[in-house]
């Protein structure tokens, strides 16, 4: 195991500015643990509110369709009231978790992966709830497991709210944003900033506001964070949130790194959805220095947007998943960049909850649905962990309440391999591989 750690460390140190995964290491690390996570139902099937359990196997076992993994019977329960927000170290030896809601909501802890259902919680933990609430949104930066970024927006109010300013004219709804950097190695808060992030006066007078921030990513130069947004529109005449409104172009917030200061907003003219993702990554730095970002709730179906190394949207890049896949209302539940312009995306279309897997080529702006045994109950709505290991991409495919398998996708050849069987329980589903 010691040699594995050395390999992993050297791997992560050189991968710093290369994007998420190093194509020079095509086979990945042969001794890497593969940790599978499953969400238990609370009161409704598929709600994932019963908690999260994890189980680690060797890569050999993960690839072997003869092996059965039952995370619900043999796994380890991660300390979280509801679905845990898990991330893993690049070497697979450590799981990071921020507990979501509950008495320990906002608590970041590290678990050492020992294999099987054995995980050791390290005795130091850090709580970010004072800054980012007990239900924080966070991801790890691709910087060799050094930093996690948590973000939050709170207290959205009109400029003329409250007794003292009741006679002022309406100008905007704004919330207070928090951006916080977490030292994943020392288990400490490194820094944080809190500010209001204005939109243009024309957008604000209509009631548009940033409702949430999520899924930050570090740019190629390592001097800016690009943070995804979830937009909301309130009717200034009534104060009520509008359900159907004409969406603005997709927006991201750009802040200086590591100071976290000087927030500015960039706007796409290609995508019209949010780009906040869901419980995991949504933007990736590729080898070409550009950042690729997926949209959700896009009025024209999910798009992949491109942000240039100069931190501006590249509006000449127009990658519509509807067009590429030949479907209506494509919706990206979760996706992951695998290197060399190839990405894998879990999506739905046509308003159905049934999930599919597609292989994207970001360079040619083409997408192909991967041939898998699809099932109407396959729902990636809570999916949060696609693992990229060298050229290989690991995804857990289990319809709610039914058994499934790990599938291994070769990003270079497009080949699909069926891996270990995932034993399911009624109402539960597997939500990731780490």
């Amino acid at each position, binding site marked *: 195991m010691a040699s594995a750690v050395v390999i992993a460390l050297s791997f992560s140190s050189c991968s710093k500015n290369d994007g998420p995964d190093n194509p020079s290491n095509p086979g990945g690390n042969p001794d890497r643990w593969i940790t599978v996570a499953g969400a238990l139902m609370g009161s409704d099937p598929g709600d994932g509110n019963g908690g999260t359990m994890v189980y680690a196997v060797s890569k050999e076992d993960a690839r072997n369709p003869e092996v059965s993994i039952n995370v619900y019977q043999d796994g380890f329960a991660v300390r979280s009231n509801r679905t845990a927000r898990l991330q893993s170290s690049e070497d697979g030896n450590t799981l990071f978790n921020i507990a979501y809601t509950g008495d320990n909501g906002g608590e970041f802890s590290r678990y050492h992966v020992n294999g099987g259902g054995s995980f050791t919680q390290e005795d130091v933990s850090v709580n970010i709830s004072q800054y980012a609430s007990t239900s924080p949104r966070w991801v790890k930066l691709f910087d060799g497991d050094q930093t996690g970024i948590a973000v939050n927006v709170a207290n959205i109010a009109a400029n003329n709210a409250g007794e003292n300013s009741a006679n002022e004219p309406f100008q905007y709804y704004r919330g207070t944003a928090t951006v916080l950097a977490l030292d994943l190695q020392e288990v400490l808060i490194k820094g944080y900033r809190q500010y209001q992030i204005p939109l243009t006066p024309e957008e604000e007078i209509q009631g548009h506001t940033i409702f949430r921030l999520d899924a930050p990513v570090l740019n190629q130069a390592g001097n800016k964070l690009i943070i995804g947004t979830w937009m909301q529109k309130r009717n200034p005449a*009534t*104060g009520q949130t509008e359900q159907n409104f004409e969406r603005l172009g997709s927006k991201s917030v750009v802040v200086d790194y590591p100071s976290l200061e000087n927030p500015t907003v960039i706007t796409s003219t290609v995508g019209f959805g949010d780009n906040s993702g869901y419980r995991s990554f949504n933007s990736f730095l590729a080898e070409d220095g550009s950042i690729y970002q997926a949209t959700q709730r896009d009025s024209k179906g999910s798009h992949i947007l491109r942000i240039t190394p100069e931190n501006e949207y590249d509006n000449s890049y127009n990658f519509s998943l509807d067009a590429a896949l030949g479907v209506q209302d494509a919706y990206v539940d979760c996706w992951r960049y695998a290197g060399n312009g190839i990405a894998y995306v879990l999506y739905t279309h046509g308003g159905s909850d049934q999930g599919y897997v597609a292989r994207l080529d970001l360079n040619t702006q083409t997408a192909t649905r991967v041939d898998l045994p699809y099932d109407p109950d396959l729902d990636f709505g809570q999916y949060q962990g696609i693992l990229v290991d060298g050229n290989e991409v690991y995804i857990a495919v289990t319809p709610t309440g039914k058994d499934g398998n790990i599938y291994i996708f070769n990003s270079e050849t497009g080949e699909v391999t069926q891996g270990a069987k995932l034993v399911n*329980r009624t109402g539960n589903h597997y939500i990731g591989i780490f």
Partner: protein
Amino acid sequence: MKQFYLTLLFTSLSNLLFAQLSTIKGKVQLENGKPLSHVTIKVSGTSIVGISNDKGIYELRNVPFGDHKILVSSLEIKPQKIAVLIDKPKQNVDVTIDATGDVALDEVQIVGSSTKREIETQGFAVNVIETQGASLRSFQTNELLDRTVGVRVRQNGGLGSAVNYNLNGMSGNSVRIFVDGIPISTYGESFSLNSIPPALIERIEVYKGVIPAHLADDAMGGAINVILKKGMSNNLVASVSYGSFNTIQSNFSGLFRDSKSGLTVKASGFHNYSDNDYEVWGKFVRNILPNGRYDYVRARRFNDAYRSLGGQIELGFTDVKWADQFFIGYNGSDDYNEIQHGTYMTIPYKGRFTESQANVLNLNYRKRDFLTKNLEFTFNGMHSDRSQVVNDTVRWNYNWFGEKSVGLDGNPILRPTGAQQGAATILHIDRKVTTFRSGLNYYVTKNHRLVLNHIFYTIDRKERDDMRSAVEREFIGTRDLQKNVVSLAYEANTFERRLKTNLFGKYYQQKIDRVDPVLLSENGQQVRTEDRANSNKTIMGYGLASSYALNPTLILLVSAEKAVRMPSENEIFGSPGDNIIENVNIRPEISNNFNLGLKLGPYQLDQHRLSFSTAGFLRDTRDKIVQRINPRINDALQTNPYENLGKTKSIGFEAEINYVFNDKLNILFSASRFNQVFNIRYDDRGNQYDNYNKQLPNEPFFTINSMAQYTFSHLVQKNSSLNIYYNFGFVDRFYTTWIDLEEFRTPKQFIQDIGASYFFPNKKLVLSADAKNIFNRQVYDNFAVQKPGRAFYLKLNYTITNF
């Protein structure tokens, strides 16, 4: 079958062992209270006889337990027979004779001495808590309830904190609280079981699962009915208590009746205050350092003060020709409540508080032989104006020392939610509540009664949040709710009152009017109009309660009800602020509730007296109203309706043993255990859920309470007495999440209290001292919320009667 014989054997043996004899004492008097001497009182069919002396007092010795007829005769009145149930070793039966010579047992006295048993043997699963002893001690009403078998009071801290009642596993909206049969919500937040002191309470009836017809409301899981004191003799009682955490509780109540005109004045008042600054510690009490690390501390709660003040005055006539009771009254109350934290103790709040007021006008009328003989009519009308303000505007994080938390740069950190618990708010909620309750009781014969009850309840609610913009404040919808519940019951005492049967049906109607403002475009102009909708739901419920006395010391009780809970306004019409959308087709929740009980005793052997009761119960709840969770859309935009999806089942039992020695030592032991499980078995494809039949998380399912009390007479002064008490409570550990994780399990809890009361020889003054949680254990009602540790209280009671 075997068990049946064993039971019979056991009871007949008990009958041999324990002589079941009673001494009856009482007073014979005219209606105006004048004693009558030389009246002969004879137990029919026996040779037991007594004659009243010049003070009207008579005594009958060695009367066997059971139903008897008592023959009352004298030279001046015509002989009459009256039925009484003798079930106590010492029983008080007063006899009142009106001027025409008609004889009546004095009802007030009878009620005073045996109401508890009378109610508890009707067949319902009911506990009657008598407050006499407790009112002398530094007790809160919620503490009394919490010691009652099958009742779990879950409180979010000390005096005044938010309370949830759990009756045999049913809680929240399905348990309703009444004051004298009127829903307590009429009185407002400021007149709650948190504020009403036991001294103003005659008794508390706790009905589990099956609710009698006169408590007409959609109380699906149970009802707690608080009966306020209604003594008819002149009296004045006052008490004051002071103790730990700067807790002061004082109250008075008094009654004056002019015997000539029947003019009666009743007044009572209370004042409670506590800093609730008790110490907390353990894994949930930590300050978060600027770098995010924990610093575990011991700290005193600093934002938890509570104050309540209230009074009631009633003016009217009692026992006059046109009314047995006629009162017009006013009830006013006010409270102030600081809130220290939310669901968990891990994040302390500063500056969040609520203030509430209520002004209630009421009218009470009661008349026996109304219009015709054997018809009793009661009417209770109330109108209340309630207002509440929730105030939460402090923008900073605080630590457990009450200081602003600072970040890495040394500046205070803004709360991630805006204010302490959520967005900043100064929310005014005003409600006007009107309740009319009327009842007709008709005695078809002495042992057959028809009960018809109607309750009408209307609530008109307005909200205003000062922290919103002017537009938002104006653009707010209204909800008006009206509820009618009609219930009809038939009560029969048959087989010489051995079999009591109570059959009832209830008809519920609930109407909710919704008015939401909307903007419409007309000729390019935005015009404000109203979007009106209403929902009208009706449903029937029915049930049965029955008891059978195999003999006076062995009673079987059985009760069952198809109980309902109407959907609330939010469940029907949604709440845009909480991302709930409307579902006008939602149905009421239904629960099939069943109770089976057994009461044994009291058995008497020399100075020893023993009684025992046990009950088993089943609650099968369907169409449970839950909000469907959509896992795809993230929480804050999840606009989902409430739906009839859930199913739960609760099975359990409770038992209570009471032992009394020489009327000096009294030991009470009770235990309650239930299994409340998830009851949806299969998914759409017929696969069984893992959670099926699994205990729901966060339910304290096993509790034990025991109490011992001893009375010393003439200890210090002649005619004085001293009572000492010891109380022990146990709550078993329980998981708080679906996953059985040790970190999410509350610890086992053992709580011990002691106390003493000293009755001065004049019997007017009583001094009590209480020490609660004497070993200063960490006590949790709700997961991760610590209750007060060791505390001391001193209380002084003063009573004047018959002035």
